[in-house]
């Protein structure tokens, strides 16, 4: 079993190099390679998740605090399975023409991005995390610029500069942590972080969080969001919205035992998350461009995840994991359907989607269901996340934050239902539905959303396992540093 964990990172890299040799061949070979690799990743991570749970691989045979470890525990395997599922759907169904992951260069970059995202989740070493983060970042810069229009370049350049600044700050933070604790292993760090003096610990953790908040699109690191979401090719939008932000959310959940030891830092991050939530959702409310709107909504949802983690406790982490998963699934649906609408009407402004429910009834239904799930309507997946989030807020007596979350949820509901309403208005235009194959992955994802919405019990056992793995530093540390303790 040990090798599977390494294969999850190695295989996509291998596929990326393989694609170079098939550069003259037909597209379907590239798509076949990508689909095979990602499907393998999905299945094997699900099998590992359901069969036994935890697994630690010490790379190169160096024992944990000295070498790099890959940790596949009950928390990280959930997220690896999630990102592999979404990459599979992009590779298999979105790969044709529209998403531009078809030619071998984009395909190779897409595979490198997949490897980097899996690596960021699986690694148990802070510097290794940084390296994978940069690998993901460089691939995504190029993939955003592949959109080829002015806002693609603007978005990519803004992303490079904010990303470069944030990752350098993160590296500085890692340097300070290594300097003061003498370790880079996350599990070892959880045990030793208490030894560092208060102010230095704040500084180091704050700097490390810069890099994670960038991926989560939290204010002030989200200046790149609107242009990048507007300019990126459709497949890359899904990657930005459903994969990279998911990875950011996972990392914050993973670092929870370290964060919780710093009540002062949490007090500082709480207003930041609230501000980010309000700004992002209000910006989405005013937005007319569908992809920018969805980008702002991602930023808002990730701020919600951050709030759930800051509320803390079992319930808070449960809510955070649930919201991250619900958001990743729903946002992928919205982008797939959005790409289908764009293709049909040749416009990205949602106001021009008037009456589209006639030409594409399934698309309209899928869009509405995913939007309702994001808002948190009972019977959808997002509802259970929001519910346990409010429970966590009540438990930690953060009434002001709960009030803001509820108000912002209404704003969110209004702007999504406004779009759905536009879809169902009657209109005499005769647009033809194009690129309907983009609806297939959306149907699959919506089925998952509805299934979990009506029967949350089917995954609550897995998520609870993840919560236990995330909440107690002792469990994670015991897993990784077993022979030391």
């Amino acid at each position, binding site marked *: 079993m040990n090798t599977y964990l390494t294969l999850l990172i190695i295989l996509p890299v291998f596929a990326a190099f393989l694609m170079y040799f098939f550069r003259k061949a037909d597209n379907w070979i590239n798509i076949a390679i990508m689909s095979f690799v990602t499907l393998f990743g999905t299945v094997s991570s699900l099998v590992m998740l359901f069969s036994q749970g935890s697994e630690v691989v010490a790379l190169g045979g160096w024992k944990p605090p000295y070498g790099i470890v890959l940790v596949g525990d009950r928390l990280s395997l959930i997220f690896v399975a999630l990102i592999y599922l979404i990459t599979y759907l992009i590779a298999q169904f979105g790969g044709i023409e529209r998403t531009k992951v078809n030619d071998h260069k984009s395909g190779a970059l897409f595979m490198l991005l997949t490897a980097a995202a899996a690596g960021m989740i699986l690694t148990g070493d802070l510097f290794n995390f940084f390296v994978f983060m940069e690998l993901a970042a460089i691939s995504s*810069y190029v993939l955003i610029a592949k959109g080829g229009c002015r*806002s693609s370049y603007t978005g990519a350049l803004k992303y490079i500069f904010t990303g470069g600044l944030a990752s350098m700050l993160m590296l500085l933070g890692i*340097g300070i942590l290594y300097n003061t604790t003498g370790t880079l292993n996350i599990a070892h760090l959880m045990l030793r972080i208490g030894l560092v003096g208060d102010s230095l610990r704040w500084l180091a953790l704050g700097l490390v969080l810069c890099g994670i908040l960038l991926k989560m699109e939290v204010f002030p690191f989200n200046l790149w969001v609107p242009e990048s979401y507007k300019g990126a090719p459709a497949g890359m939008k899904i990657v930005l919205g459903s994969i990279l932000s998911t990875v950011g959310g996972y990392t914050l959940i993973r670092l929870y035992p370290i964060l919780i030891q710093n009540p002062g830092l949490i007090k500082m991050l709480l207003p930041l998350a609230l501000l980010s939530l309000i700004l992002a959702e209000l910006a989405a409310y005013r937005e007319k461009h569908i992809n920018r709107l969805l980008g702002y909504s991602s930023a808002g949802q990730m701020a919600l995840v951050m709030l759930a983690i800051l509320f803390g406790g079992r319930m808070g982490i449960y809510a955070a994991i649930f919201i991250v998963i619900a958001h990743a699934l729903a946002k992928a649906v919205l982008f797939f359907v959005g790409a289908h609408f764009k293709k049909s009407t040749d416009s990205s402004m949602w106001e021009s989607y008037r009456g589209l429910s006639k030409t594409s009834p399934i698309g309209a239904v899928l869009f509405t269901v995913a939007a309702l799930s994001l808002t948190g309507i009972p019977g959808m997946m997002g509802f259970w996340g929001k519910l346990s989030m409010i429970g966590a807020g009540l438990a930690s007596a953060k009434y002001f934050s709960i009030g803001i979350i509820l108000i912002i949820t209404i704003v969110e509901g209004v702007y999504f239902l406004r779009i759905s309403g536009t879809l169902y208005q009657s209109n005499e235009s005769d647009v033809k539905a194009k690129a309907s194959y983009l609806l297939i992955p959306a149907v699959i994802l919506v089925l998952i959303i509805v299934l979990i919405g009506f029967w949350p019990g089917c995954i609550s056992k897995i998520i609870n396992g993840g919560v236990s793995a995330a909440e107690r530093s002792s469990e994670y540390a015991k897993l990784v540093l077993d022979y030391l303790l």
Partner: protein
Amino acid sequence: MFTILYTLSLVLALIGIFGMISQKNLIKILISLNILETGVNLFLVTAGWSAEANVPIITGKLGLPSAVNFVDPLPQALVLTSIVIGLGVTTVALALILRYYRKTGNLTLEPSEFQSGGER
């Protein structure tokens, strides 16, 4: 000595951050990013440095005390990796700036692009 090295590397990093915030020209922002990178790398190397210790290379004279007493090699390995990553980011950024210049004819991100642009 340590204090001077730490201070200087952090000052270099701060100069880079200041440049990234204050400059308009894309190339200048990129140069500022590189200055910031250099500052951070110097900071990391300083973390493993010690005045009395040797280079962390195992030579034939392993038994000698001077060969045992070497500086922490891990920060050096980290910095090596980070330099390579910095090179990659710089290359990609330069290529993108070139594309952007060919597309738009200028080297600054226009303030109008921060607002809602036209339809794609």
